């Protein structure tokens, strides 16, 4: 469903951000992309979404991510940004939710059906007509996920979905992520969340894939994590 083949990316300054990165994510799989700051996680997300373009091949489904295929790619792909304030740019949750379906030519009736179904699934019906600046951080994060789900994407990219959330809202987001049938790629420093949601993990450092495998195996490897400026998730430290 998601494929990166020998992808490299560098900025004009000559700094290499990604160096020959290749991985595949199957349909319906939930994969965690972990690494310290500056490892290249966000760059991978941006390459998958067609915000950046590098060397090598990037595929969403069978569609290569290129400038002339962006419309098709983005129709299949939902990207939950790290900062919900940037994601929720319309005045109300409802207006944000209809934004993508209407842009993709989905009828008014179908859009309404989708919105109601998504809000009910995420238990957010009460927020439907709320103003974005009036809802809490946790609600906004959930609404940002709802906004993406209203697109009915085949692939969901999530950038730090639990960042700055309190434990209660963090658990709500984790449950929501787990309930999704779509192919998901999640970047996060919250390794406990990755452990709770992802079956597979890709560890990235300095633009290279260091390790890839079962979440339990990688996230319990203290030596590996510490060698790449990370720590064991709290669930494995016994604290």
């Amino acid at each position: 469903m998601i494929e990166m083949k020998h992808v490299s990316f560098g900025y004009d300054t000559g700094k290499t951000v990604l160096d020959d990165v290749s991985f595949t994510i199957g349909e319906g799989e939930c994969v965690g992309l972990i690494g310290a700051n500056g490892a290249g996680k966000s760059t991978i997300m941006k390459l998958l979404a067609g915000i950046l373009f590098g060397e090598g091949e990037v595929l969403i489904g069978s569609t290569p991510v290129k400038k002339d295929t962006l419309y098709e790619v983005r129709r299949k792909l939902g990207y939950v940004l790290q900062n919900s304030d940037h994601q929720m740019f319309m005045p109300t949750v409802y207006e944000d939710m209809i934004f993508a379906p209407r842009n993709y030519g989905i009828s008014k009736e179908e859009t309404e059906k989708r919105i109601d179904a998504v809000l009910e699934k995420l238990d957010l019906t009460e927020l439907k007509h709320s103003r974005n600046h009036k809802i809490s951080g946790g609600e906004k994060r959930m609404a940002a996920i709802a906004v993406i789900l209203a697109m009915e994407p085949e692939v969901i990219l999530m950038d730090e979905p639990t960042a700055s959330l309190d434990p209660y809202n963090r658990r709500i987001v984790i449950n929501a992520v787990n309930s999704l049938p779509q192919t998901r790629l999640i970047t996060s420093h919250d390794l406990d969340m990755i452990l709770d949601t992802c079956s597979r993990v890709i560890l990235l450092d300095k633009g290279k894939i260091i390790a890839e495998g079962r979440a339990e195996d990688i996230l319990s490897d203290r030596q590996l994590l510490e060698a790449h400026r990370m720590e064991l998730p709290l669930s494995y430290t016994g604290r």
Partner: protein
Amino acid sequence: MNKIDQALTEFREMDELADQDSPVHHFPALVKLPLTVIYILTVLSFHKYDLSGLFVMILFPLFFFQLGGISVRRCLYRLRYVLPLVMAVGILNPLFDRSVLLRIGNVNISGGWISMLTLMMKGVFSLMASYLLVASSGIGRICAALRRLHVPAVLVTLLLLTYRYVTVMSEEAAVMTDAYHLRAPKQKGIEYSAWGSFLGQLLLRSMDRADEIWQAMQLRGYHGHFHYVGETPASLKDWLTGILLAGLFVFCRCWNVTALLGSLFV
């Protein structure tokens, strides 16, 4: 709350006002918009000495403020930054136009004073009508109406995004001002020497944020065409109401209603 936060709250309250439930709010923006333009044009077309004729025009916004449950006081308070400018427009008239137009007791009132008052009233009435339009429709419905009136999409989108961008910039400015004051507790404002870097940073931060919002829009299929929500279609009854009101404006412009009413009693 710092002043920018307060301004931001007031700005957002405008949108919230538009969510109220009243006949004025339900009246389609598609009719309200041209009606407001006609009202403003009518008000502006009054002769500079026609103070009594113009006076009756205040009744329209006042009536609709009442009907819409929108506070006139809040309106004048929110327009506090613009009103002095509007009022200053005719401030020199009394100096240049000294011809005596009327006498009240022993006091001579010159044409300059009358024209100054007329200009001020024209400004205030026009602003009140514009405020009423935004407060009872919201920017989204106004933009939808503009599109239906065949105003070019580029202009309408520009208007909408500029409106939205004001909040983005204000939010950044509010955060930066708070951060500044936390480290400069005894300063009342921002020191002149810091203004250059402050404004530069504000611009850069706002651009970064706007860039991210733009990416978020593109990621959700935006290709230059906004789909506006909430606009109720205008029925024949709405159009007829609009035409009737426009007719009343023109009537008040052509006949001095205040003088007509006065003649009934004198």
